[in-house]
């Protein structure tokens, strides 16, 4: 499959191989720092040649990312990272292409490119930093800002229904969706690695904190005090258990709705809980999991969906190989002299 065509590094690489000499200019305390560190850890693990990583971004705080990595990269224009990355990957499938974007970049101005990237299933790894705010323009609401939130452009509270990135990805026939948080580097590196190994478009939503304009927006899910009761980290083949004392779980009732249950109450045992199957081609349960949100339910973290499907880049390669093999037109001279021609 695609992954194997990316050349491997002969010598083992370390995170130092990917660290840039440029000053990182994100705010102190910004969640982006932790994400950068995680990526620097993941790249050497994947084992590709260091010249074959390409990092593409759009505009926004997150999109400064390529400047802070020692790889090939393009800091693009607002919203267009998905299309730029598409061109890079199609032109050279031997590159490990990473797209760094935010909730404004990919879900507002770049929404169109984002859904079509997902639909086409091009082998690109997307890290979508979701801080539910426009940071670089200093605090306007974004397409993921919770309804009612007061921001600089919603002084009386937003009157928009926010997007849930997972719902959008699954609705666009996404083959891979995972969610991490900037406060949990171990989980981030694990899902980034899974994303890289997945053939096709991998969307990794990272709940990221903007310390200046939207501080603590994910607090319920991420803070030490509340996270255990408000996050569920799913693992393939494992029951969906969470809570401080691992006492809570998810249960699918007879009306096909998810319920939060407690083990030991009403006769519920661990066996009654849902077991995560990230490879299930049927996306309906994945969709339910992606949309859960505190306080009624825990937010689901980890790899929610990872299914096999043809990738655009593989199919394009196949079509080209077939035509090159079978078409009588092998070069321009052949083409110029094909069809109806005559001497004068």
């Amino acid at each position: 499959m695609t992954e194997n065509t990316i050349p491997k590094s002969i010598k083992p690489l370390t995170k130092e191989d990917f660290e840039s000499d440029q000053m990182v200019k994100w705010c102190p305390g910004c969640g982006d720092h932790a994400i950068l560190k995680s990526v620097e850890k993941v790249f050497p693990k994947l084992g590709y040649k260091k010249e074959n990583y390409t990092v593409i971004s759009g505009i926004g705080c997150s999109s400064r990312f390529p400047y802070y990595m020692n790889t090939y990269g393009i800091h693009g224009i607002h919203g267009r990272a998905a299309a730029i990355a598409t061109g890079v990957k199609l032109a050279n499938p031997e590159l490990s292409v990473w797209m760094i974007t935010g909730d404004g970049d990919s879900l507002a101005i770049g929404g169109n490119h984002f859904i079509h990237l997902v639909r086409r299933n091009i082998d690109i790894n997307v890290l979508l930093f979701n801080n539910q705010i426009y940071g670089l323009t200093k605090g306007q609401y974004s397409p993921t800002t919770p309804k009612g939130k007061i921001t600089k452009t919603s002084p009386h509270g937003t009157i928009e229904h926010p997007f849930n990135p997972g719902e959008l990805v699954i609705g666009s026939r996404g083959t891979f969706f995972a969610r991490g948080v900037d406060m949990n580097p171990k989980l981030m590196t694990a899902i980034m690695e899974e994303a890289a190994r997945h053939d096709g478009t991998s969307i990794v939503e990272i709940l990221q904190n903007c310390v200046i304009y939207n501080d603590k927006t994910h607090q319920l899910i991420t803070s030490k005090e509340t996270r255990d009761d408000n996050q569920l980290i799913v693992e393939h083949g494992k029951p969906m258990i969470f809570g401080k004392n691992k006492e809570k779980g998810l249960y699918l009732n007879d009306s096909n709705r998810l319920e939060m249950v407690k083990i030991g109450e009403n006769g519920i045992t661990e066996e009654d809980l849902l077991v995560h199957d990230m490879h299930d081609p049927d996306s309906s349960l994945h969709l339910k999991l992606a949309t859960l949100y505190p306080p009624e339910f825990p937010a689901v973290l980890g790899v929610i969906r990872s299914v096999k499907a043809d990738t655009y880049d593989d199919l394009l390669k196949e079509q080209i190989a077939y035509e090159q093999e079978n078409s009588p037109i092998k070069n321009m001279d052949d083409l110029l002299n094909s069809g109806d021609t005559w001497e004068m």
Partner: protein
Amino acid sequence: MTAKDNKVVERKDVVVKFVGDSGDGMQLTGTLFSDAAAYAGNDLATFPDYPAEIRAPQNTVAGVSGFQVHFGDKKIHSSGDLCDVLVAMNPASLRANLKWAKKGATLILDVDSFLDKYIERAGYESNPLEDGSLDGYNVIKAPVTTLTKKTIEGMKIDMKTALKSKNMFALGIMFYIFNRSFDTAFRFIENKFRTKPLVVEVNKKVLRAGYNYADTVEELQSVIQVPAARIAKGRYRNMTGNIATAWGLLAGAEKAGRPLFLGSYPITPATEILQEFSRHKSLGAKVFQAEDEIAGITSAIGAAFAGSLAVTSTSGPGLSLKSEAIGLAIITELPLVIVNVQRGGPSTGLPTKSEQADLLQALYGRNGEAPAIVLAATSSSDCFDYAFEASRLALEHMTPVILLTDGYLANGSQLFKIPEMKNLPEIKPPLAQQNDEHYQPYKRDPETYIRKWALPGMEGLRHRLGGLEKWDVTGNVSTDPENHQKMVEYREKKVQKVADRIPEQEVMGEASGDLLVVSWGGSKGAVLNAVTALQDEGKSISHAHFSYINPLPKNTEDILKGFKHIVVCELNMGQFVKYLKINFPHYSYLQYNKVQGLPFTEGELKTKFNQILEGVTG
């Protein structure tokens, strides 16, 4: 070949126009007629003229589709002004096109369609066949529909399908008049309907029936002989501007040894470029039909970064949408060809009609100081040459090139002399060497200001590009005031330096005189014909037709100097003349502008030039 004892009239060139409902197959009929003319050795130029709607209401003027072809025994530069023969399939198409027929032209009309309701729907107050309005024309009242029906009687085919072949009847009449062979048309029909042998039979039979009918018509007293053209010896094919554009870019990619990538979104009249590329995967062309115009160009920018000859094709509204991304390609200094097939604007404008009104947008339509190379093709067949040239300049100078064509060139066709790839110029992109210790992303050639192209995957050359201003040489992000000025100047000089590597501007005619006619891009044919005609009359008139717009050829001002008057002819309100005024303010310029979605006619140009010349001499 003929039953009647017709006299043969020899003509140097002839203009023929086929018109009918947009579902009548006039484009196909015109194409088949042109192919037969080309096959017989005539040079030619064609001009399809069709409505924006796929099937506008039948038998209305709004739904008229036309195809004009000009062929002759010499080099044909334009599709011609007025036609010698008009084939009209219904009253609406006659009404819309009679003004484009010469006085005394032959009109071939399907009389079966001249029913009261259709005559009325066309907007006529009385039947033109009876009210004397066609007096002075050679009218052939052909019962095309009736005879088509009669021809296919007894064949096992439904009437609706069979009647679609009535355009073949009209074509048969034309084949008779011009004494054409059936070969090319038969070959086309056999190929197009290869899975439907009955349809092949019907079309061939109806074509022959039209031919035989013509042989019995008293009004057709003569057949017209147009001798083969005396043009350069070689192998030829018929080419539309859009196909020529696609092939020129493919040739550029092959010559440069870089794979071709096209990111595009369908838009009239540029869509055939996207379609054509998608047929040529065997040449390694990667075609990405994007979700919108912006994704078209930005995917191409990504592909350019990764080492492709990257292309995006569009028309005016699409060029507007691509503006910001063109700026990205300019600041990242990546090679990119943007093909803009101009159409009538603004906004959606006249999607199927031609105009030259995107020139200033191509030159200036971006934020910031954002110079791009701008070229303009001048004929359907030289779209190949300018597309190849656009590839060369983009790849060798590491910057975007905007290639302007227009709907008239794009859909029109001409004979194209097939080149040999080995004879086309070399294209050598400035690729960086792997592990070059001295590589820096914005280190430039001191003469040309060109930076090196380092591709992802190459060892030892990792770097980041982006839309933020960069430090000279290192390419790190910079907001330094002096550095920004320096980088702006470098980008401008880099484009201006291209003038060293393009041909000088040519003048057709004397280098000095009373009147210099200036034109650019797709209007060359009509202007050249008008100037040549006046030169033949002994007038002091010369012609400079521009294809290199930015930078202009170095000798441009030397040419302007030599004339008492300069008139700039454009299919817009005067954009190139504005550009000339900016660059050469010491000259005074007259203008001739037309914005009707139609090409210039030779006649109107001659009138204008004569007025100026009379003012000069009188």
